[in-house]
Every structure is written in C-alpha cells, then in structure tokens.
C-alpha cells in the first residue's frame, strides 16, 4: 500500500491517563498516516475509548500529547478538535434524538459555517445562501450513507443500523481530515457489517483518513492498512494486519495467557 509512504496525520506521543490508581493509558505512542484506515483493537477495558476521548479533547491526558496535521492539539477542547478536523462517532450512539435525521447532519455543519443571531433574525442574503448550502450538503450526506428516505424522521425513531449511519453522516458534515469510529459494527449482523465495510472504504477513497476501534477482528484485519493493539492501557504492537495476527502477545491478550 502506498499509504505507508504518505506523511503523518496524527501522532500520539507517550499519552498517559489515570483514573485514580487505574492506569487506563500507559505512554501510548502511535502514528496515523494520511489516507490510511488505522485499526485500534484490544480486549474490553484495554483503553481504546480512553485513547479516543483524550484525542478528541473529552479527557485531559495526564502525560504526553497529540500532534495533528503538524501542530499540537489543545487538551480539554472538544469543540476545537472538531474545528481542526477530527470527527468522531460514539460507542453507544449519541444522536440528537428529538431532531430529524436531516437536522442532525445540518448541526454537523456548525463548525464550518458562521451565521450568528443577527443573521438568523434578519435572514440577510448571505445567511440564506449559507442556510441553503448547509441543507444541500446535509441532503447529499444522507444520500452518501444511504438513509435519505429517513431525512424527516426523528433520529430516535431510526433503526439501529440507520442510527449508526446517521452518526457517521453527522461526523462527515464537519469536513474531517480524520474520522474516528468507535465500534461502528457493534450489534450489527453480517449483512449490515458488510455494508458498513463498503461505506468505510468509500469514505477513505474520498480522501478521509480513518481511525477504527473495533471488536470484530475479522472486519479490522480485512479493512485496515495498519493495526495497533492495546492491552491493559499499553501498546502491544503496531503493524500491518498480517504481522499483528501472528503475534504471540496479541493471541495471548485475546485468548488469555
């Protein structure tokens, strides 16, 4: 894969996070290259989601930090992380339930648009044009994830699989450079997983780098260019799937020593 030669997009440098005495992350360093699909796997409680939360600014790391696209990420500023180009989905889907699917995606454009209260009140030409562009982009994204016929339904009334798709569409609406998916295939059947796989590959083809946390080892190994394995908050290995799959420590971590 040519992805190996492309420049770094995200670099994690010795990221550490403790909760009381529990070392959720122990100096984890890894690097994601532009244009790749990067998998992050590990048993339950290995620190995958904690890593995600540190990166997207929901948690403040106790040590280390991130360099994204050449400049450091500010800790404890989730809204800024989105502005820089990091978008995420959540392990337990977090949609805006009482808003329609279309509105959910429209909210995603917030960080790339600028109309304020006065614009809203006076509806000047610039605001109207921006509003039309937001709507059009949101409709396009619903088409992209193939739930356009659910546009006017409340997000909470969507099926589980559609909710996952909607969350991805909302994340894509922020024009991310890096899209982080936290267990997107959890609870999906084989067909749905296959469709998800096509969607993720499509997103990468369209130029977005992807960080994928996933339990489904088969999906990860088939989809990712490189994979990192976490166990007890420490990085075990970071390599191409073929190497990771054969690594004795990974087999032990998953099957128990």
């Amino acid at each position, binding site marked *: 894969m040519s992805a190996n030669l492309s420049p770094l997009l995200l670099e994690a440098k010795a990221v550490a996070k403790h909760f009381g005495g529990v070392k959720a992350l122990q100096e984890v360093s890894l690097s994601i290259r532009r244009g790749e699909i990067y998998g992050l796997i590990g048993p339950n409680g290995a620190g995958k989601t904690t890593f995600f939360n540190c990166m997207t600014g929901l948690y403040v790391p106790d040590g280390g930090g991130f360099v994204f696209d050449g400049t450091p990420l500010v800790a404890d500023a*989730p809204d800024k992380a989105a502005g820089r180009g990091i978008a*995420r989905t959540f392990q337990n889907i977090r949609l805006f339930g009482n808003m*329609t699917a279309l509105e959910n995606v429209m909210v995603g454009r917030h960080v790339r648009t600028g109309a*304020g209260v006065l614009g*809203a009140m006076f509806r000047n030409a610039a605001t109207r044009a921006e509003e039309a562009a937001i709507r059009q982009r949101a409709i396009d994204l619903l088409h992209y994830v193939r739930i356009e016929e659910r546009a006017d339904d409340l997000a909470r009334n969507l099926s589980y699989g559609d909710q996952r798709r909607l969350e991805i569409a909302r994340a894509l609406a922020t024009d991310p450079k890096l899209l982080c998916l936290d267990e997107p295939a959890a609870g999906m059947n084989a067909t749905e997983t296959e469709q998800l796989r096509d969607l993720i590959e499509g997103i990468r083809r369209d130029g977005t780098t992807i960080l994928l946390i996933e339990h489904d080892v088969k999906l990860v190994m088939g989809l990712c260019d490189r994979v990192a394995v976490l166990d007890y908050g420490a990085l075990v290995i970071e390599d191409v799937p073929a190497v990771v799959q054969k690594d004795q420590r990974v087999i032990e971590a998953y099957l128990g020593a």
Partner: protein
Amino acid sequence: MKKGQFFRSMPGIGLAAALLIALPFVAALGGQAWVRILDFAILYVFLALGLNIVVGLAGLLDLGYIAFYAVGAYTWALLASPHFGLHWPIWAILPLGAGLACFAGVLLGSPTLKLRGDYLAIVTLGFGEIVRIFLNNLNAPINVTNGPQGITLIDPVSFGAFKFSGATQILGVSLSGPQKYYFLLVALAILVIIINVRLQNSRVGRAWQAIREDEIAAKAIGINTRNLKLLAFAMGASFGGVAGGIFSAMQGFVSPESFSLIESIMILAMVVLGGMGHIPGVILGAVLLTVLPEVLRYGVGPLQMAVFGKMLVDPESLRMLIFGLALVLVMRFKPAGLWPSPERQRELQETGK
C-alpha cells in the same frame, strides 16, 4: 423550506389579522377588565416565548426567569417616574432595560455553565429570589427601589405626544388605554414570534437544540457549548427585560410582590403545558394559563350560586384548585403538551398504541 406555521396562506393571514383586531373590542363588551386580561395574555405570550429560547430550545431549566422581567420593570420604573424625578423616553429605557436584563442573564449563566437539569433549576430559582429580595430591601441606606411599597405613578408608554394611557379618538374610533396597549403588545408579540421561528430554524437554533439533546455529542461536532448557553440566557433575558418594561408602564405601579417564584413557575408551566419548543404550543399555553384563572375567577362564584343556591366553597380557593387539577390532567394525558410539535406528536401516536 420550513416556514412559520402561521403564515401559510393569504386568507389565513387575513382571518387571523381580523380576529386579532376585533378581539379587544369584543372583550370590551364585558368591561375594560377583560381587555386588561387580554393585554396580560399577550404579555405572557411574549414572556413565554422568551423563556422558550432558554428552556425549549437550549434545554436549560430556568426557574428564575421572572428576575429578568423584574430587572426590565424596575429599569422602567426608576427612569420614568417621580421616584427619582426622571422621565426618560421609551427609546432610551426599553433598550437599556433589555440590555441590563441581558447582562443579568449572562451573570446568571456564567457560574451555572457546568450545571444541568435539577441543579441548574435550583441555582436559577435562588437567583430569582435574590433579585426579588434585593428589590424588597434596597430602600435603605439609599432608597433605590422604595422597598415593599413599590414605585407608583410610573409614566405610561408614549411616543411623542401620543400616550398609551387614557382614551383617545383615532379615525373616529374611541380606543381605551388597555386597547391601545393591546395593539402595542400584539405588534411586539408578532415580532418575538418571528424572531423565535427564525432562530429555531437557524444555525444557532440548531446548535441550541443539539446542546439540549446531548451536550457531549454537541461538543464533539465542534459546538462551543459555553458561548451558546450564555447566548441563550442572554437572549431569553433580553425578552424578559422588554416585557418587564412594558408591564411597568402599563400598570403604572411595580412592587417586588409581582416577581415572586410562582410567577416564574407560571411562565415555565405555559412553556411546558403548551408544548415545549413548539412555538404555536407555547402561545396557546400562555393564553390559556392567563385567561383560564380569570374565567374561573368570574365563573366559579355565580356557578355555585346557580347550582347550589349558596356559596359552598370560597371561589378564590376553588379557582386555584380547579386550575391545579387542570394542570395535572393535561400532564397526565398530554405529556408532550397541549400542542406539541408535529414530530413529537407522531412519535407519541406510534408509541401510544
């Protein structure tokens, strides 16, 4: 394109306008008291829509909303009454009142940014009470608010020589003071309805709703929740301030008594009972909750006389009993409000089978 629910067709607008114009004259047949009740109904529409921004859109449970109303009311009362001998014009006081209320909103908002739900409700409740107690006690050492006696002889709204108090002849039609205020209030209410509709379907309005639905997800997609929450408090408070100013001028008298906790709760009840976040619902809630107690006030006594031939229960307590019961019943059988938004209505029908 989503448009305001009201302004859909020309005949619709015409009919609504004709009704709105005829209403104060019909009410006047029952006496000027009914016109005043109508005035208050519209004033509360204005207030409830202001609170709807904070509670309905941004989802911040505010139990001290009346404090901003009080700020606006006292701003007008102090700057346009013999109390300080000041008689400032409306175009100076009303924006100042809105500005001060807005400032109070930010003042309340900033320490409460990390609080949600019940905790926020308690702090805002406390804030409302603090403002009221301040007004009650700020008559010593310097007499600013005249304490519990309140401020009297407040100037009415006037534009140049045109005063809103007392009767005037306009185009051969005699308009009483309350009728003139009615038209002023309707104009203001239409303005606030337009602002509400436009805010709701805007970038800022959607961000507010996102915060209401899931604050963490809202942050994760790049919404600055701190600034937007402050903005919601500030906007809601400004509306409260304007309403307070008009209240002050209309009554000609203010005292801390008018700004008690029960008033905050009533306005919140209007928003919730009507259909939180749904503008026509909020308007309905405000009108019902203002008019119903008055209808009961005048209706309960005579009704008892007619049915039993004597007064069995004190009309005043029976009125509040029936009113309370009505609230409970609505919440039991229409939990999303009397007139919820179409999306929520559909959902309730789906799950309510």
